[in-house]
């Protein structure tokens, strides 16, 4: 059911002048069209051009898309970035769901504060945080030095930084709050008496989690997954800074085409591919929500 009854669906009648109707559609379709689609559209066009001797050739061709599949290491980097983001998304959604459920099980009074304590880290610049993560995890970083000083180890642990694992950890930490918030907000709407009823029917807390909490939290979980996937798929700064020689990702390749390489056509095509990927992720998340029966 819709919070706002409307005339458009088979809902109740509602008087609204044609002018108001136009304004409403205009605002909602016009604004994004003007500020988003039109500006971006040119890049889609550019993606079908090519570069020859440093100059753009204005002839439509699929060359850039072909290049993605056949030349260099675009496809390989794309796939490994995809895998990385998928892994981070998976682990973050699991963690964020656990944390959201944890918050949900607190008393109503404390929930908001706990939630906010998970959001607070977003207020520190991620660049500073990455620097900080590095100075903690470095071979001569705070962690190693601390452990050495305490005598817990006698050689610095080497493997903490500059590896795929490091990227994984850093991305997970940086983007965890983005997953927690939507999931929690969905859980927060679960009627209290549903839990009473499921317990009454004999469900263990775990079963209640499986049958009530998680299904009803699904829109939030999907949103959290989409956030995490998209943000990590596009982020090349973090991998580059903590990933060592493994820190090369697809976003970086896209970015590099717009610098001195001046290869906007290829860059645009790669961006379109990135867009298609993220769109697909959104669509997939949408699919899991199809069977949504709202009260």
């Amino acid at each position, binding site marked *: 059911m819709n919070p706002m009854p409307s005339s458009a669906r088979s809902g109740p009648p509602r008087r609204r002048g044609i002018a108001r109707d136009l304004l409403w559609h205009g605002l909602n379709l016009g604004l994004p069209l003007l500020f988003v689609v039109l500006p971006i559209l040119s890049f889609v066009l550019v993606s079908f051009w090519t*570069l020859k001797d*440093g100059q753009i050739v204005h002839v439509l061709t699929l060359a850039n898309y072909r290049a993605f599949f056949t*030349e*260099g*290491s675009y496809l*390989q*980097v794309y796939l490994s970035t995809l895998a990385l983001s998928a892994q981070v998304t998976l682990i973050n959604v699991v963690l964020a769901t656990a944390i959201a459920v944890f918050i949900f099980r607190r008393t109503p009074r404390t929930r908001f504060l706990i939630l906010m304590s998970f959001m607070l880290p977003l207020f520190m610049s991620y660049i500073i945080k990455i*620097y900080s993560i*590095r*100075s903690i995890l*470095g*071979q*001569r*970083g705070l962690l190693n030095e601390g452990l050495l000083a305490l005598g817990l180890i006698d050689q*610095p642990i*080497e493997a903490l*930084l*500059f590896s795929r694992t490091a990227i994984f950890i850093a991305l997970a930490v940086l983007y965890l709050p983005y997953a927690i918030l939507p999931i929690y907000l969905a859980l927060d709407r679960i009627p209290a008496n549903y839990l009473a009823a499921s317990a009454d029917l004999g469900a263990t807390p775990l079963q209640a989690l499986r049958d009530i909490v998680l299904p009803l939290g699904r829109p939030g979980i999907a949103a959290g997954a989409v956030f995490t996937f998209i943000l990590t798929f596009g982020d090349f700064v973090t991998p*580059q*800074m903590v*990933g*060592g*020689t493994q*820190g*090369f990702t697809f976003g*970086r*390749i896209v*970015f*590099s*085409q*717009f*610098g*001195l*390489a*001046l*290869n906007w056509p290829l860059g645009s095509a790669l961006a379109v591919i990135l867009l298609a990927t993220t769109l697909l992720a959104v669509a997939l998340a949408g699919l899991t929500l199809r069977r949504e029966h709202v009260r």
Partner: protein
Amino acid sequence: GPKGEVRLLAYEGYADPAWVEEFEKETGITVKVTYVGGVDEQIAKMKASNGKDYDVVTVDTASLKAFADQKLIAPIDKEKLTSAKNLLPDFQPMSNATFGGATYGVPWAWGSLGMVYDKKTFPTAPDSWEVLWDPRFKGKVISLDDANNDINFGAIALGIKDPFNLTDAQLAQVKDKLIALKKNLLTYFAGFDEGTTIWSENDVVLMFSMGELAAINLQKKGFDVGYVIPKEGAVGWLDNLTVSAGTDNTDAAYAWMNFALQKKIGADMAKKYGYGATTDAPQGMDYASRLIWAQNPEDYTRRQAIWNEVKAAN
């Protein structure tokens, strides 16, 4: 921008607040500085706005031609550049910044992409870039991440005489060389600071650096490091002051350039940031003659593609 304003697109350290303050007091022109992190962002930004957002842009000699070809910067009007006389004689001809009969930049700051080494590990300075490939130092080497300069560096390390005009065969050679280096690398880094920070937090003994500042900063932090230009040579970079093609305020642009090219400003920059000034012989930077001064390379696009493959290689 408004008449009484000059807009700079610059790197960190090229518009010190003290200078800005002095300039504003002197001329009544307000200074607006926009900092960028690298030349890639700079050119993307300039291209998308046709240079209309800035009056003065600092561009290094290696990318000047690209900026000029894209019509992002305008030729220098030497008449208006009254401070040109302050330039050291070496920089007076501005030859690096001249092509197609026009001069596009005024030399402003320079440095080298040399090697930083740990003095404990190397009681005497390594004399060849080859040491970076030495398996003994696996995982203790870090390298600058810069498509163009890394290829220059690879070519230099291979002993190629003209690193700016590489043949296909040479490029392939350089690529393999750089991929081979990866095995020894702990990581790449992107700026002076990243290099020094990573050095100080990890067990690093060798660095293909972004310049003198890396060594200076490490020494300030208490690390016993040295800076050397190996026998193969090293890229010398030279950043130029240029006038944006999109400016509608040429006078203010020249006012800033004339102000910046004073000897005292150059001296202050050298002191504060460790860059070589073009108006004053810098202390300790006595190796200018051994540097291979950066030039516009044969094909940026190509180089970017190759560099991407290097970085993607396993």
